[in-house]
């Protein structure tokens, strides 16, 4: 059995920032990460961030990950373990279990029990799937997979791409594909307007990429792998209009239709959850400190509601501060730090037609 003040599930932007705040307050922190390396999705973000300097605006995502890790390494009271998946939360005795992967597929994994005094769940989100004929063909990817291939591993993912979704992920990945010499044939979105920031959309438009709103995929086809994508226009009831089909010869179709929170641990732990479409799906009720209906369990980042990495870092800091306070550590300038974080969130959430703010309001305790 491992005993710790604070268990943090996930070493993405939210988990790392939470660890830094709680660690700075003096808490013993154990951060568990299922991947080979920390940083979450930051490591594949080659674009410069927006926001203010507090969220590392104008730095690229992978640099932000390095900055946070360097800060964390200076604190001996924070322990980070990778290749380790938190499996379960047991609400009867407060024990959490984790699986530590073997070195090779033939090594048996090890299992550990952990008894933390507090937990921050910062597990992130996963890409939503989309139903259409041929969606299982090799060559149909989540947009994040293409970003992983291209930006993390330096593999040219495809030659001719159709992007489904004109939110920020669809727009940014499209731009990164064009930068890397991949032809983006079209970006389409079922909604009648572009969901992402216009600055990203304008860059694509200047490069000659058509952004087709009120359009979606009718089918994907190919012999053993994707060869053709058929898009069509949608009417006001989101139904395809016969006769408007356009066929693209593409070797990749990227699905960027949103993310949904990876909230399994919160369900297991018994946190009260609410379905909030604006936040991507089921999210936990939380107070201003990101504390759930279970007093010892906090949340941070996309699992609390899908936003952006910038917001994830700030909610991570708030959860880290809240957990340190809950654990009884004396946080220097606690109220000022919280005020600062809340102010940052207010401005980061200002856009999006107020949808994020409304969603957070619905899930607030």
């Amino acid at each position, binding site marked *: 059995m491992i005993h710790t003040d604070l268990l943090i599930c996930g070493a993405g932007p939210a988990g790392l920032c939470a660890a830094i705040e709680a660690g700075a307050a003096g808490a013993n922190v154990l951060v568990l990460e299922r991947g080979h390396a920390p940083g979450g999705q930051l490591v594949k973000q080659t674009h410069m961030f927006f926001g203010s300097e507090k969220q590392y605006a104008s730095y690229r995502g992978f640099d932000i990950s390095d900055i946070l890790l360097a800060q964390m390494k200076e604190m001996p009271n924070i322990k980070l373990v990778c290749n380790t998946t938190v499996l379960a939360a047991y609400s009867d005795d407060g024990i959490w279990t984790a699986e530590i992967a073997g070195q090779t*597929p033939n090594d048996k994994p090890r299992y550990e029990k952990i008894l933390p005094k507090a937990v921050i769940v910062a597990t992130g989100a996963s890409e939503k799937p989309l139903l259409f004929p041929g969606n299982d063909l090799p*060559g149909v990817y989540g947009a994040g997979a293409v970003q992983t291939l291209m930006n993390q591993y330096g593999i040219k993912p495809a030659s001719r791409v159709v992007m489904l979704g004109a939110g920020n992920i669809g727009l940014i990945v499209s731009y990164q594909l064009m930068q890397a010499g991949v032809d983006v044939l079209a970006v389409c979105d079922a909604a009648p307007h572009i969901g992402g920031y216009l600055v990203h959309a304008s860059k694509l438009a200047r490069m000659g990429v058509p952004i087709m709103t009120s359009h979606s995929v009718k089918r994907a086809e190919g012999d053993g792998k994707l060869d053709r994508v058929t898009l069509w226009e949608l009417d006001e009831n989101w139904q395809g209009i016969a006769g408007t089909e356009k066929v693209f010869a593409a070797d990749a179709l990227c699905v960027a239709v949103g993310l949904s929170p990876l909230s399994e641990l919160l369900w297991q732990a018994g946190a009260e959850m609410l379905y909030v479409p604006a936040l991507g799906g089921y999210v936990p009720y939380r107070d201003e400190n990101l504390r759930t209906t279970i007093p010892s369990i906090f949340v941070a980042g996309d699992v609390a509601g899908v936003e952006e990495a910038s917001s994830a870092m700030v909610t991570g800091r708030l959860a880290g501060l809240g957990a340190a306070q809950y654990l009884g550590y004396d946080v220097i300038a606690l109220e000022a730090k919280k005020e600062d974080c809340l102010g940052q969130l207010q401005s980061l959430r200002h856009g999006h037609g107020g949808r994020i703010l409304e969603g957070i309001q619905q899930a607030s305790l």
Partner: protein
Amino acid sequence: MRFTENTHPILDFKRGAPITFTFDGVTVAAFEGEPIAVALHAAGVRTLATSLGEQKRPRGLYCAIGNCSSCMMVVDGVSNVKSCIELVRDGMVVETQHDKGAL
């Protein structure tokens, strides 16, 4: 195809040591630090498994971060290995998975 410093505008990819592994008996060149499915993608392989049932539809890389289970392969005799997150090693034996695999 792998990018080089001349073919990518922002990133300078530092690759691990060159290694080889086999895919369905064919030798494939890769670099340490690459997941199996990534190395196979660079080698032009798109089908990693086939679907269960009679249709045997091809299954490829989908999420690349261990969420979706589309990329499960047989690795060194072990079934259901998520090839998008399992790192390739020198001499590894990788096979397309055609059934639900043995435990």
